[in-house]
Each structure stands twice: as structure tokens, then as C-alpha cells.
């Protein structure tokens, strides 16, 4: 973290520069527009719990599913050099599986919720390995391979629970989706932190990061160094599967309802964008999970800002597109190279000027 900060202030273009600048600009913009935009209030909700509220909380809370998916997507991107576009559909399946178990038990308690979640994980991992097998064994381009599940995923979700929008009502589900009594921070935020810590630990206690990057940068060399690249690619999809299950569970728990058609609708595009805004190369290779998480918050902050500005429904997506185009173009290698050249020129000129003054 310290290193990253140093890099930014040294004028070098670290991977995180663009997303951090984007967040700063959005914050400044909002503060100018409405100084109270980021104010946070502590108040009672309808269940009588003291909870935090405010735009900042809405942003961080609302981006939870996106952030978790972006973490998994980063791995897939790094290892396979392509993206999984079926995460939204897969999350609908996982969410439906979650609800299915809850609905089939007479009363919902902690054990059933855990069982339902584990079941959702298994289901999502199975679909993840389906995608992963197509990509790693059959060498199908990730976007094409996952197009299959993207197309039929929500139909599969429909088969699990039928077409209506089944609801589940339980304090435990409510605690997962909104607040645990006594804790004023929305639970999804806590889950994101937890997932991020788990990723950190996995990177610390395994060679996942090194192997994934090696496979993504130079698969042939990785193979000749004894890395099983098929396994690494498959593994990335399975890990994404777990992320999908967590995101699906949060999505369902927020409202205690599964709508297979709209649960995390279009989230795949936002996820890919989050990875891109985070400065990760969509062609695979080196990656930074933290970048993707920040990317997710950038996207969410943009959405909430537009809502707060009451931009009309029909225009929201267009505004979003404009900002994202800007971010992606600024982050492109071409602009980066131009910028570092400029920085170099400035750097080189300074001593020259100093000398000239003497």
C-alpha cells in the first residue's frame, strides 16, 4: 500500500493510479455539487437497530456483489486472457439454488442457511468448472465459452424455482442482506472485506498469484516450468464460481427474494469494466485484485452520483458510458506512454532550467 502511494506521488504510472484518480475526481465533483453528499448518519431502522446510512454507505454497500465478482473475474482474466460473461446468469442460478434449499426446509435456521449457501457454492462451482473446462481443456475463447451459460443460465435458474419470484422471510437472511443486529455496518460490506482477506490469505499461503500470472503471460514457458496451466485456468473459474455464489447469496438476501430474470442483471459487463478500470490487462497476465475492487467502487459511485443528480432514466447509461470511455482511454497504453513521456520531459527540463539560472 505504502509502495503504491509512493509510486503515485513519484509521478510514475502505477496500476492503481487511474482508478484512484477516478475516485478522487468523483469525490471532488460530488463535494462541489453537494457538500453534504458524503455525510453519514446513524439512525434507527424499522427493526430498531442503530444503523449507518448515507450516500457513502449506499455506494460501498451497493458495490458489494460487483466487488466480489470483480475479484474472481480478475483471476480468470489473468489466467485465461479473457472474461467470463456468464457471471450474472450463474449468480441467478446460485441464488435460485440457495432459495431452493431454504424453501424446502420447514423452518429456516442457521444450519439451513449454511447448508443452502454451501449448496449454492457447489452448484456455482460446477457451472464454473463447466466454463473452465471449455476454456482450459478445449481451448475455447473465454467469452465464447461462457456465452453458452450467459444464454441459458437464467432459464436454468427458472427451472430451479419456477417463474414466479419466490420469497424467503427470515431474520438470518435479513442479517446477511442488510444488518446484523448490533452492528451498524451493512453486512455485505463486511462480506466484501472478508472475501478480500481470504484472497489475500490464499495468495500468501499458496503460489496462486505467481502461477496464474505465469500462465497468463506466457503459457508455453509456464508449462515448461512444470506448471499445469489447464489446472490453473480451471481453478480460476472455480474460484470465480465461489465468488458468484457469494454474490448471488447477497443479492437474494438483500430483499429475501429471487427474481431469476433480474438478479444481478448486466453485472457481467460492470464486472469486466471494474477489472479494466482497475488497471488490469484484459489480455491476461499481471493483475491486482485491489485495482478491481476500487474499479467496482468507481462504477458504483458513478451510478449513485447519477441517481443523486436525478439524471433521467433514459440518459443514465449514456452518461455512464461517456465516463467509462474516458477512464478506459486514459488507462490505455497509448495515453500512458504519452503521459510518462511528458513527465520525463518535465523532469529533464527542471534541472536544465536550474542550471540555466545559475
Amino acid at each position: 500500500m505504502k509502495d503504491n502511494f509512493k509510486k503515485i506521488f513519484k509521478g510514475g504510472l502505477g496500476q492503481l493510479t487511474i482508478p484512484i484518480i477516478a475516485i478522487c475526481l468523483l469525490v471532488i465533483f460530488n463535494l462541489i455539487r453537494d457538500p453534504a453528499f458524503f455525510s453519514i448518519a446513524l439512525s434507527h431502522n424499522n427493526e430498531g437497530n442503530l444503523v449507518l446510512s448515507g450516500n457513502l454507505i449506499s455506494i460501498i454497500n451497493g458495490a458489494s456483489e460487483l466487488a466480489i465478482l470483480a475479484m474472481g473475474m480478475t483471476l480468470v482474466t489473468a489466467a485465461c486472457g479473457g472474461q467470463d460473461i456468464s457471471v450474472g446468469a450463474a449468480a441467478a442460478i446460485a441464488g435460485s439454488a440457495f432459495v431452493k434449499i431454504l424453501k424446502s426446509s420447514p423452518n429456516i435456521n442457521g444450519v439451513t442457511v449454511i447448508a443452502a449457501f454451501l449448496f449454492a457454492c457447489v452448484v456455482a462451482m460446477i457451472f464454473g468448472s463447466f466454463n473452465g473446462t471449455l476454456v482450459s481443456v478445449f481451448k475455447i475463447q473465454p467469452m465464447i465459452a461462457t456465452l453458452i451459460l450467459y444464454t441459458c443460465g437464467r432459464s436454468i435458474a427458472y427451472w430451479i424455482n419456477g417463474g414466479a419470484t419466490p420469497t424467503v422471510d427470515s431474520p438470518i437472511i435479513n442479517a446477511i442482506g442488510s444488518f446484523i443486529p448490533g452492528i451498524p455496518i451493512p453486512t455485505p460490506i463486511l462480506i466484501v472485506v472478508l472475501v478480500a482477506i481470504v484472497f489475500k490469505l490464499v495468495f500468501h499461503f499458496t503460489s496462486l498469484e505467481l502461477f496464474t500470472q505465469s500462465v497468463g503471460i506466457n503459457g508455453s514457458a509456464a508449462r515448461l516450468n512444470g506448471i499445469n496451466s489447464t489446472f490453473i485456468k480451471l481453478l480460476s473459474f472455480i474460484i470465480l464460481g465461489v465468488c458468484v455464489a457469494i454474490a448471488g447469496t447477497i443479492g437474494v438476501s438483500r430483499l429475501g427474494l429471487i427474481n431469476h430474470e433480474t438478479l444481478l442483471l448486466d453485472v457481467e459487463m460492470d464486472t469486466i469494466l471494474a477489472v479494466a478500470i482497475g488497471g488490469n490487462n484484459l489480455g491476461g497476465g499481471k493483475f491486482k485484485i485491489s485495482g478491481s475492487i476500487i474499479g467496482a467502487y468507481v462504477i458504483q459511485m458513478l451510478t449513485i452520483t447519477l441517481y443523486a443528480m436525478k439524471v433521467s432514466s433514459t440518459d443514465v447509461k449514456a452518461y455512464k458510458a461517456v465516463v467509462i470511455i474516458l477512464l478506459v482511454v486514459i488507462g490505455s497504453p497509448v495515453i500512458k506512454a504519452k503521459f510518462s513521456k511528458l513527465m520525463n520531459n518535465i523532469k529533464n527540463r527542471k534541472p536544465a532550467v536550474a542550471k540555466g539560472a545559475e
Partner: protein
Amino acid sequence: MIKKKLGSMFLAGSLMMTMLFSACSSGGTTTTTSTPAPASTEPETVAETTVDEAPAVETPASGTIKVGVVNNPPSESGYREANVKDMEAVFSADNGYELKTAYSLKNDEQLQAAQGFITEGVDYLLISAAETTGWDDVLKKAQEAGIKVYLFDRMIDVDESLYEAAVVSDMSKEGETAVQWLLDQNLDEYNVIHIQGAMGSDAQIGRTGALDAQFESGKMKKVVQQTATWDEAEAKKIVESVINSKEDFNVIYAENDGMAKGAVAALDEAGITHGVDGKVIVMGFDCNKWALRELKAGAWNYDGQCSPFQAQIISDLIQGKTTASSKKIINEEKGFDAKTLTDADIETYGLGE
């Protein structure tokens, strides 16, 4: 039991995928199934529409009336699922029908299916079209073959003479009913959060119209009007952002039940009361059973119906029990008030479980 079911689901899942693979080349997934009596699908749930005491009607020589239904697939929505079930229940063998169905979201596949039914020689053709255009030829052929056509749920752009009648919902009327109910509440002021469905859909256009008129007339104040594209979570975010901006509002008009639920979740988190004795009036559409239960519990105030039950009306027309006064028959739709809703209403009109 569950495991077994899920096991078969996975099997079906993988089958579906292989189908998709092959579909790439063959170019279609229309499944034309001949459905005899839906013995396995609980026929008792449709009690309200089934005419139990129906006398043995004058049947054609073959003894049964052959009906071909071209519809959208039940997976499209909860509405469609109820619609399909209703069709299967009403046009059952017990009621003297032989039902053939074809489901597709694609117009050309629907056209092919209709063509197929004509060749097979059905007596009646019932259509809920994916698109409003392109049906002239098929309907003319049906007419030449002496097949009578009924449209349901959706209109088609053809000459009126080509079909017997169209039984449809009037989405704008749904909106008008709801807005009229809202006006009847005689609030001092109306500060409305309007959460729209997917822009451009029939339901969105219909349900938005009446409210827009009120905004324009100045009778109601538009706090915010934004689309959540039928997405519950998005609806919650929209309401959250209004709450965070500290703007005052006392009505939430959500264009379907899911989005109303999302909006209510935001109110709950912010500690704002809602429903019958609350500060904010909550309105939804579609009459899912769970939504009507929220209504009954007093957490919401109003739910507007969008009836998927057209089968009985058509059946009555076929059997000559009623006659159509005009080509376009508007399926009567109700609006439910939390204060007057009964448990029987929930059973009768609620969708899903």
C-alpha cells in the same frame, strides 16, 4: 427427493447446453409438444376458472376441439408461467379439448409453429405473438383453412377480419386504475418516487402514462422518476439515493412487485414507516401472492393486477357461451387496496405461491 429432482435438473441443464450447441446449426429450439390432459400439473389450482358444471357442449365430429396455442415460453416471467398453466388447465381433455402448444420468444419460430398447426388441421389457433408484425400470411392461410384465430395477451398488426377476437390487458388502464386509487386517498400533497420498468416495454409505457399526466397537471410532484429495469436491487438503490438526499416523499409507485419490495427494503433500512399506517404509501403491480400478503399485512397499500387468465374467456367464446361485443376484449383487471383485500382474493388472483 429434492436431491433426485435436482439431479434431473442438472441432467436437463446439460441437455439444454448440448441442445444449444446443436441449435447453433439447426437454428431453432421451438418445442412443439402435444399436451393431453395435464394430469401431472395440479389441475385443482385453477379451480376458479374451470367451469365444473360445464355441460357437455356441442363437440365437433371428432369428439374433441383441437386447439393450437402459440405462446411465449413460461420461463419468460411469472406472468407467463401463470398464463401457460391457465391455458393448459382450461383447454384440458376433461373440458373436451385437444391442446397443442408451441413456445418461443422468436417471431419467426412462432410463425413456423403456427404454420405447423394449420397443416395439422387444428380447429382454433390461439396466439400471443412475440412481435406485432409479419403475421398476415399465416393468418390468411388459417382463414382459408377455416381455422378460427384468437389473439391473447398481445395484439398483432393485422386486419381485424383475420381474427375472431383479441383478449388483452390494457396496460394504460392498469395505470389509470392505480392513479385513480391514489387520487382517492385525498392526500394533502403527493410527492412521488416513480420507479419504472424496462423502458419501452408495454407494461412500463402503460403504467407510466397515467402518472405522467398527473405530474404534468401539477396535481402530483415528481420527486424522482427512474428506471430500475424490473430489477429489485436497483429499485432499492434509487430509493436509497432519494433518502440520502433528504428530499421529502410520501408515495412510492413501483411498476412491479419486485421493485416495490426493493423500495420498501430501503425504507426499512432508513427507519421510514410505510404501508397502511405509515408515512409512505407503497404501490406495486402484478399481484404476486407474496406481494398480496405484504398488502394484507399492511406493509403496502395497493397492488394492481395484470391478469394472465385469458383462457376461460376464449373458451367461453369458442363454446358460444358468450359472444364478443367487439374484436378487442379487454380482460378486466382489478386493483387491490390493503384495507379491503381478503384472503380469498389472494388465493384467487395471486400469482405464484
